[in-house]
Every structure is written in C-alpha cells, then in structure tokens.
C-alpha cells in the first residue's frame, strides 16, 4: 500500500492545548508544598507531555511496528541506564569499612 498517514490539523491543535495546560499544571504544582510528591508530579507530567509529543507530533502512533521498535528502543535503553542509581541509593544500607 503506497499510502501515507496525514495527521489532521485539529489533532495537532488539540494536543498543543493539552501540552500548554500541562505546562501550566506543572508550574502551578511547583508553587505548592507537597514534599517529595512535587518531584513525582513534575516528572509524571513531563513524561505525559513527552509521550504526547512522541505519539502525535512525531507521529509514532500511526507508524509501522518496525518503526515502533526503533523509536522506543532508545528510551528503553535510558530506563536501563537509570538502573545505575540503585548503586548510589543502596550503597549506604550496609556499613562496610573502606566505602
């Protein structure tokens, strides 16, 4: 099939408004005191925003399975990389001389 998906303008504009709303939300939430939950909220909103850009602006939602694999591989690798933080967090759990 020699056809190519074209995302309608209305979808782009809707996604844009959601992104701006989320930008306002992330700023507003940072102004109130939630302790550690501020971090959780900020990162959750950032991931939602990035996912919206990834799916709609970058058009991955409408792409082939092969493109999906290629597009997500880099981000999955990043998750694996963040596994090194386990070392920094857990090192102090058992006191060992010389560490």
């Amino acid at each position, binding site marked *: *099939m*020699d*056809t*190519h*998906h*074209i*995302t*309608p*303008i*209305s*979808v*782009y*504009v809707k996604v*844009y408004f959601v*992104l*701006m709303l989320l*930008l306002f939300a*992330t*700023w507003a939430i*940072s102004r109130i*005191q*939630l*302790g*550690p939950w*501020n*971090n959780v909220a*900020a*990162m959750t*909103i*950032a991931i939602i*925003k*990035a996912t919206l*850009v*990834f799916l*709609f*602006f*970058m*058009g991955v939602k*409408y*792409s*082939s399975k*092969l*493109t999906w694999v*290629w*597009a997500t*591989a*880099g*981000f999955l*690798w*990043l998750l694996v*990389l*963040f596994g*090194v*933080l386990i070392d*920094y*967090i857990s090192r102090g759990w058992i006191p060992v001389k010389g560490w």
Partner: protein
Amino acid sequence: MSSQLVQPMEEYLWEQYEDRKQQDESYLVGMWTFLSTEIMFFGALFISYAVYRYKYPEAFYAGHEYMNVALGTINTAVLLTSSLTMALAVHFAQKRKRWMQIGMLVITMFLAFGFLGIKFVEYGDKFREHLVPGYNFEWNQANVNRLEASTAPINIIPSLKAGSLPADSAISHDAQMYFIIYFAMTGLHAIHVIIGILIMMVFIGMLVANHPSVRYHMPMEMLGLYWHFVDIVWIFLYPLLYLIPR
C-alpha cells in the same frame, strides 16, 4: 479524528525500494537510529544530574534559587509552540502545500530564535551574578543571605533552615556542580536548537527555489522528528532545572 490518505507519489520512489511504504519506513528507522544516539548523548547528562542531585540536594536547591522561573516557563511555551508549527509544516509538506509549509517553517525558525534570545538573557544574568563555574564563580555571604531570605518555607531539606548555612560551607563547592550541569545540559540543548535553525534555513531556501530534493515530504518529516526530539529534551530540563521543590 479522521485520517486522510494521499495518492502515491511514484516519481519519488528510489530504485532500491519495493514501494513507497518500504522507502518511508527506511527513512523513519534511519532517523530513529540517530535519535537513539541522541537519547544516549543526553541520557548520560540526565544520569549525572540524578546522581549529583541525589548526593547534594541542598546545593541543588541553592543553585535552583537563581533560576528565572518566569523566563524558563515562557521558553517552554515558546518551544512547545514551535513544535506545533513544525508539526504543521510537516502536515503541509505531506499535502504538498509548499508556501504554507514555508510559512510554518519561518514561524518555527523565529520561535527558535526567540528561545535562544531568552536563553541569552538568562545566561547573561548568570555571568553578572558570578555563577559561571570556571569563569567567575563566587559563593559568599550574599548568596547565603539570599537563600535564607527565600520566601518559600523549606521543610524538605532541614539543613537549609535559617542560620545553618556558613558561607564557606561545602555548599559553595557543591553549588558549582549544579551550575556545571545547568550549563552543560542547557548548552548542549541550545547547540541542538542552533543546528535545527540552520537546517530550517537550508529547507526554507530549497523550498523557495522549489528544489526537487525537498518536494518529497520525508526529508521534511525527518527535520520534524529532530525538532520534536529537541522539544522533548526541554520538557524534562524545565522541571528538573527550574522547579526543584521548595
């Protein structure tokens, strides 16, 4: 939310491909391979950010007090808007509306210049406030006073409470790390914005000349992917650098 399909453009099928679908997929896979290397490039910086913020939360809090949240928020909005206009440029490329495509690219380029302009102002402030590591970094009693006078109540980092922050404390040393990471991450991001602007200029020039290389929409889609990736990086930089919890 209906999608539209366009007629095939067989004249843009290169001979090594079976059909347009295979050809378009090759473009996408190639571009995403490049973007994966970009994720690793920025990923290493995000990891160093996470490690240092975990080890020196006070210093990161202190450093972030010097961020201009208003300018950072405006810059995020500018970049998100440029992503929309870039997506529309791709849309018009797919529909072969050349002048609309050029118009959207020009708007995107101006927004990108706006982003850099705001960043320029922010960097200028850091130079004036002696917050550039390796160039003029200074951390003295004035910084401590400013931090202690901070309007927000600080309840997550007890050692930052009033009276417990000598000017010569380790925070002076560690706060530099925040600014090193700030300049490395936003600087690398700004370089990507500049490269994006240069590619946009090339595209606008070729489109105005109606060059055959840009009549096919896939090269334009590649530029779009690059620009949206730069946007995604900023989406994470904004809360991490500007909105550290109070």
